[in-house]
């Protein structure tokens, strides 16, 4: 079945934040406590209760004027996802449609995904009473898209800055849009076409990724690769060795214990 994706076109975004509210409404998420910190942007950061937000950035353009750059901030649903690599419980996993799904019940609260995500997306929240800590992030509206509905953010977007569909179609649309934009925005770029094996949330950018606050050529951190490809297997191997060693120890110890008992019995018999 074809991979699905979301295309965010920042040139069409008016930063209305309908997406932020629609996400919270569909998933029943709480409002974060916020205050005015000098920009329209709020909340200041993603959180376990804020899975998508829009960033605002004013930049001076060449003509003495200004451009107000809007950039979506949310899980990018990577094809090669660092969070999936490091998740010890497989709470984070690849769904057949390509996005990174999340089963909160399996989350052990270890925080590795928070540490290794190249986009700094997952956020943890602890329960004050039970002390149990879980992460959260955009779930790609898995319950909506598996029922022929669009993700909540996409449905709400009034300017079609967000569209949803088959990933290869959206790649084509994104590339064409970038071509159209190049006349006015020479740095226009389709972010996520190839990054990390291809992102399932792609962005049409009017400026370079740096100006939009996005990592240029993001990589799965070497330590995460080391973790999944080397250390974890070594770990399991080490555990295996330990178990084997313990098993061997048990057999040897039992054999020794039996021998000792035999010797004691012989000594007693002689007396």
């Amino acid at each position, binding site marked *: 079945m074809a991979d699905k994706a979301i295309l965010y076109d920042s040139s069409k975004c008016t930063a209305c934040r309908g997406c932020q509210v629609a996400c919270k409404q569909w998933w029943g998420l709480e409002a974060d406590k916020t205050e005015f910190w*000098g920009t329209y942007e709020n909340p200041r950061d993603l959180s376990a209760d804020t899975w998508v937000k829009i960033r605002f950035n004013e930049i001076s353009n060449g003509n003495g004027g200004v451009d*107000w750059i809007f950039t979506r901030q949310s899980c990018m649903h990577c094809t090669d996802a660092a969070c999936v690599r490091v998740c010890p419980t497989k709470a984070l996993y690849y769904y057949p449609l390509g996005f990174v799904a999340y089963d909160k019940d399996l989350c052990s609260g270890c925080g590795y995904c928070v540490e290794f995500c190249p986009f700094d997306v997952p956020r943890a929240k602890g329960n004050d009473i039970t002390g149990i800590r879980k992460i959260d992030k955009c779930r790609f509206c898995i319950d909506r898209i598996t029922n022929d509905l669009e993700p909540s953010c996409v449905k709400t977007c*009034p300017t*079609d800055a967000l569209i949803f569909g088959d990933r290869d179609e959206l790649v084509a649309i994104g590339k064409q849009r970038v071509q159209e934009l190049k006349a006015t925005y020479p740095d226009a770029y389709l972010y996520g076409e190839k990054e990390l094996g291809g992102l399932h949330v792609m962005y049409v950018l009017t400026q370079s990724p740096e100006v939009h606050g996005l990592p240029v050529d993001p990589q799965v951190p070497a330590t995460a690769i080391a973790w999944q490809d080397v250390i974890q297997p070594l770990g399991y191997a080490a555990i295996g060795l330990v178990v084997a060693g313990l098993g061997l120890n048990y057999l040897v110890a039992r054999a020794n214990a039996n021998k000792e008992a035999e010797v004691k019995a012989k000594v007693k018999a002689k007396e």
Partner: protein
Amino acid sequence: MTSHFNDVANSDCIMAIGTNCAENHPAAFHHIMKAKGRGAKLINVDPRYTRTTAVADLYVPLRSGTDITFIGGMIKYVIDDIEKNPDNYNLIYVTEYTNATFLVNPDYKGPAELDGVFSGWDATKKSYNKATWTYQLDENGIPRRDKTLKDPNCVFQLLKKQFARYDVDRVNKITGTPKDLFLEVCKLFSATGKPGKAGNLLYAMGATQHTYGAQNIRAYAVLQLLLGNMGIAGGGIQALRGEHNVQGSTDMALLAHILPGYLPVFSNTDKTLQDYLNRVTPKWADTRSLNWWSNTPKYIVSLLKAWYGDAATKDNDFGFNYLPKVTGNANSKHSHIALFEAMYQGIIKGFLCIGQNPAVGGPNSVLERDALHKLDWLVCVDLWETETASFWKRPGVNPADVKTEVFVLPAACHYEKEGTVTNSGRWVQWRYKGANSPGDAKPDLDIIYELGLKVKEVYQAGGPNADAITNLTWDYGHPPTADAVLREINGYDLTTGKLVNNFTALKDDGTTSCGEWVYSGCYNETGNFTQRRELDDGPYNIGLFSKWAWCWPLNRRIVYNRASVDLNGEPWDKEHPVIWWKEGKWTGDVPDGGAKPMAEGGSYAFIMCPDGHAHIFGGNVAPRTAGLADGPFPEHYEPWESPVQNMMSGTQTNPALLAGASAAEQKGTADKYPYVATTYRVVEHWQSGAMTRHLPWLCELMPEMFIEISEELANELGIKNVDKVIVESARGNIEAKALVTKRFKPFQIDGKVVHEIGMPWHWGYAGIAKGDSANVLTPHVGDANTMIPEYKAFLVNLRKA
């Protein structure tokens, strides 16, 4: 809107001026994006770079309050270009559909000759004698015309004279808009003057909330008529209304100067119904003009019959004396500012405040809040306890000192009741109830109906003008239904008891009733058309959707569409036809006045004007079409408070503006208040915040009040981003955090730097997200015609707190 939302997608060039539609009309903005997707250019004119600007093709800054100079400059550009390159324009449209060719009274003089005023200005009465604003009529009473547009007294030449002063240099000096940018706008927008091209103009409060707001809109009308943009697909002038049913409330005349259906209120100079009819019913000698308002008697009598039934008969002048009569200018006495001045003076004792929050939304908040203290009783009908409902316990007030008895009646929200809402595009759409209201909350219909029944009951015992109350039919069911109300609005043939087909069936002899003639036809014996949801786009694929709900009048989706065709009934734009005369009948949209094309002897195109022609010159033509209070042409004046001398004439402010009684004592001058301030909205909150500042998800997005200040001004005053600042006007002061931004830039006004700051007006002392109210700063002055407050341009001082 002269058109509707979907039609905006047909535009080739859209000018959004006096509107921040991406923020304040986000759903409607979808259609603007569709237009852009088809290659349309979006021009955004605003003192500040907004979220609309972020997706616009051209950002054009202008100083708040200088729209008439800006548009006037465009009008001059178009006039000059019409003379140089007439083939680029639709001169048949201009000469046949507008009054450009009409000859005006040679005694008429304009501001170019009279230093800022029009002929007939009476300084003592503070109003115009409009005797000179008339047409020259021939011996048959028909206006004399010059189709060559050369006669010095023809409207076209008078228009040219009016705007001759609005050259590019002066436009730049007054507005602060760079010259090359202004010329680029002129070129882009005037290109839509060519037949086959459509230019659209979107506006909202940025245009209307000025002491010359109505004239701002008149300027748009003049420009769009010169460009042949009225009545065509993708063209027109679109008022983007600020609430989902404020168009409905306007149509039902929740205003001081009109009765439902835009009928004027009765005046105390009208002694009989016939006096009233003589005063307001236009007659026109040229029978080629349909002069639709000549039907006024049918509409007013049918309205009285709807309200009074059998108690309105020929013998009692159809209940003429039941209705109150206004003394003088209705708006100057009875619109919002005037009402609160009267309240403040202790004249008004009781206030029924339904779905509004004037303690935050009204101008001069300190005065208006203090006015509430003078009331004996206040009833607030709302979803939450608003600032108005809680004025008696607001910060700084000891409730023990307040004598006002305050009632709060909880109201159902819009999804908890059924009935119609009318959007900006005049679409009347029925809605069904989606959920039950919490607790005791009731729909407004139930509340007002029951209140009316109680009032009727009390007046059975007598009282002033008691039968005006007791004789009301006031019967909408038990419990009342919106269905019953809508049927009354449509109207009945009282001889048969059946619903009338539409307003063409209404009579002035008391045999028909109708609650609002303009809606007549929405619900007749065929059914309730407002409930339709068919997606048939019609024969010409212009997004008409004529079977989706119903729009007024008569389901005509694009008004003035008779101007979208040539004299033979052929569309100017054959790729986007609105109507098309084929084989002896009109196809497409409902034609404006069903007459044949003009070439076959049919009537003139603009049926609501007595002369059948669109008014470029808004003159004194006939009863009810006497021109605006402040002139037949728009003229630039400075806002009531301005840091700048008027560079267009020696008349500083609109001489006819309407001021509250207290205004003069609280007028600021530039020496104490050097900065221009403006107020606006953000998408995250709505109006006075009465609803949105109670919703956590929205308070999360925009938690606090803020003041937007340019980097330049902030540097001058030592203010950094997020610093607390105090903004002060002659009315009061507020404190909020600063948002230092590149999106405001100082204006160069004739070599002088003029700083402008802005702020949202959503905040108050109630709700989850609290903050100071911007309207503490705004003045009690308003437009010369409507008295809408001048929220958009006033003077303040600013300092770090």
